[in-house]
């Protein structure tokens, strides 16, 4: 499986064109990616507004918990990261559980802001480290947030990318399906296909996910690691060690 720096680099590329990026709760790798994207934007004289939930230093809001959601509905938020206990090939995500919701067989924490932000944020990047048939399913058991539609509804937002510990999928809005865009170094197409619970078809230009260059790694180990430590001190210490490239995988 890919390591945290590689994944942060991969996610950062997918939000690089954004003017504003927000990260939800308990999301250290998306937070690192967002900090990296901001650093890279700044190096090109660009300004990126970021919001990392739970990190006052990285949250430019003053009007309480609702402000981020209002900001998104106003059309000001370009990118957001979401995860999922289950993610299906049509971009539907399940953050709630498996089985009857009133007496669940398996219960995840809950839908958080997904049902709302998925519809409103133009560039939603799904991230789930675990790449397995139990996560990437043909159809979710519960739709916390739908990948598309309903027809005729106001819907400026939706999924654009899905990143796992093994691969990147791009959402094809014409077919409302994910297509395999790249596999990470060391992965094989056969293995990734076997571990994906939905039908895999290859995106145009399918290839290998690019690795971070030395300049990007220096940013990740330097300013990104320092900033990440404010939001996720233990994660930063464990996964963003300064001075050497960690080749260890990180726990799911």
């Amino acid at each position, binding site marked *: 499986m890919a390591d945290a720096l590689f994944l942060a680099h991969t996610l950062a590329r997918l939000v690089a064109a954004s003017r504003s990026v927000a990260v939800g709760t308990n999301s250290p790798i998306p937070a690192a990616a967002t900090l990296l994207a901001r650093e890279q934007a700044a190096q090109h004289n660009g300004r990126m507004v970021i919001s990392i939930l739970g990190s006052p230093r990285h949250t430019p809001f003053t009007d309480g*918990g*609702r402000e981020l959601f209002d900001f998104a509905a106003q059309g000001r938020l370009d990118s957001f990261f979401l995860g999922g206990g289950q993610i299906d090939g049509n971009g539907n995500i399940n953050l709630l559980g498996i089985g009857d919701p*009133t007496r669940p067989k398996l219960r995840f*924490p809950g*839908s958080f802001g997904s049902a709302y932000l998925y519809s409103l944020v133009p560039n939603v990047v799904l991230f789930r480290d675990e790449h397995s048939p139990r996560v990437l399913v043909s159809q979710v058991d519960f739709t*916390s947030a739908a990948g598309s539609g309903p027809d005729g509804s106001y819907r400026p937002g939706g999924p654009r990318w899905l990143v796992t510990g093994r691969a990147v999928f791009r959402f094809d809005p014409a077919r409302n399906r994910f297509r395999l865009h790249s596999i990470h170094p060391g992965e094989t197409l056969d293995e990734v296909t076997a571990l994906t619970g939905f039908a895999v078809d290859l995106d145009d230009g399918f290839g290998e996910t690019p690795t971070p260059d030395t300049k990007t790694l220096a940013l990740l180990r330097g300013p990104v690691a320092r900033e990440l430590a404010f939001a996720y001190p233990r994660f930063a210490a464990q996964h963003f060690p300064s001075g050497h490239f960690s080749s260890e995988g990180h726990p799911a």
Partner: protein
Amino acid sequence: MPFLTTLQLAQAIPDGALLAVPADYGGVAMAVTLDLIRRNARDLSLAAAPVSGLQADLLIGAGAVRQLQAAAVSLGEYGFAQRFTAALKAGRLTMQDATCPALHAGLQAAEKGVPFLPLRGILGSDLLKLRPDWKVIQNPLAEMPDPIVVVPAIHPDVALFHAPLADRHGNVWIGLRRELATMAHAARRTLVSVEAVFDGNLLDDPLRAPGTLPHPYVEAVALASKGAWPLAFADHYPADHDALTRYAEASRSDEGFQAVLQEWLHG
């Protein structure tokens, strides 16, 4: 206004109350929560603004909660909320699943004194199947079809939270945590624990006044140093990592949970 004890605040919350509480990162009155368990509170309904974690899990594990409205219940980096999950699986807890902005909007509707608020998104989510009280209506101002979700006002009996400062007039400084003000505006009664007493009047200071929940909304305040322990509290103290790690491990079973709870109640 005299300061009460945290136990007196807990005793002022009746069994059966709808209690509004903030997220674990947003100023949770944990000392009062432990006193709610000490006083054997029962049949509470919790409305999380907008998610909950340790506080809900503790109250559920202690048998104090009948119903919960939240966008999620999780111990964050410490994992799933195990007593919450166990109670759901056993059918001992009625869960009203939500999404974060719907809870904010429900409290804002109560704050405005209107029966509901519309909000975008949510269409296509199975949450609509779990929430018959959320309605999809046609935007009455649009000529073209434009379905939109409306969520009902949430009227908590009591808002309960922890804040940095209160003065002797009942003004409470909440700083950036404006959702606490929304909770208080929406609730019939507001009870607050604070880290410290502010000598003087918070409303007299133009820098502090905008971050102050003023006294008309505040029924009672208790002084509780480290009142959010073992959770982190703003820039006052970090989470007690050892205590939370131990809780996450022990609360996998009811026996383990009860053991930690007894330590925290009597420690």
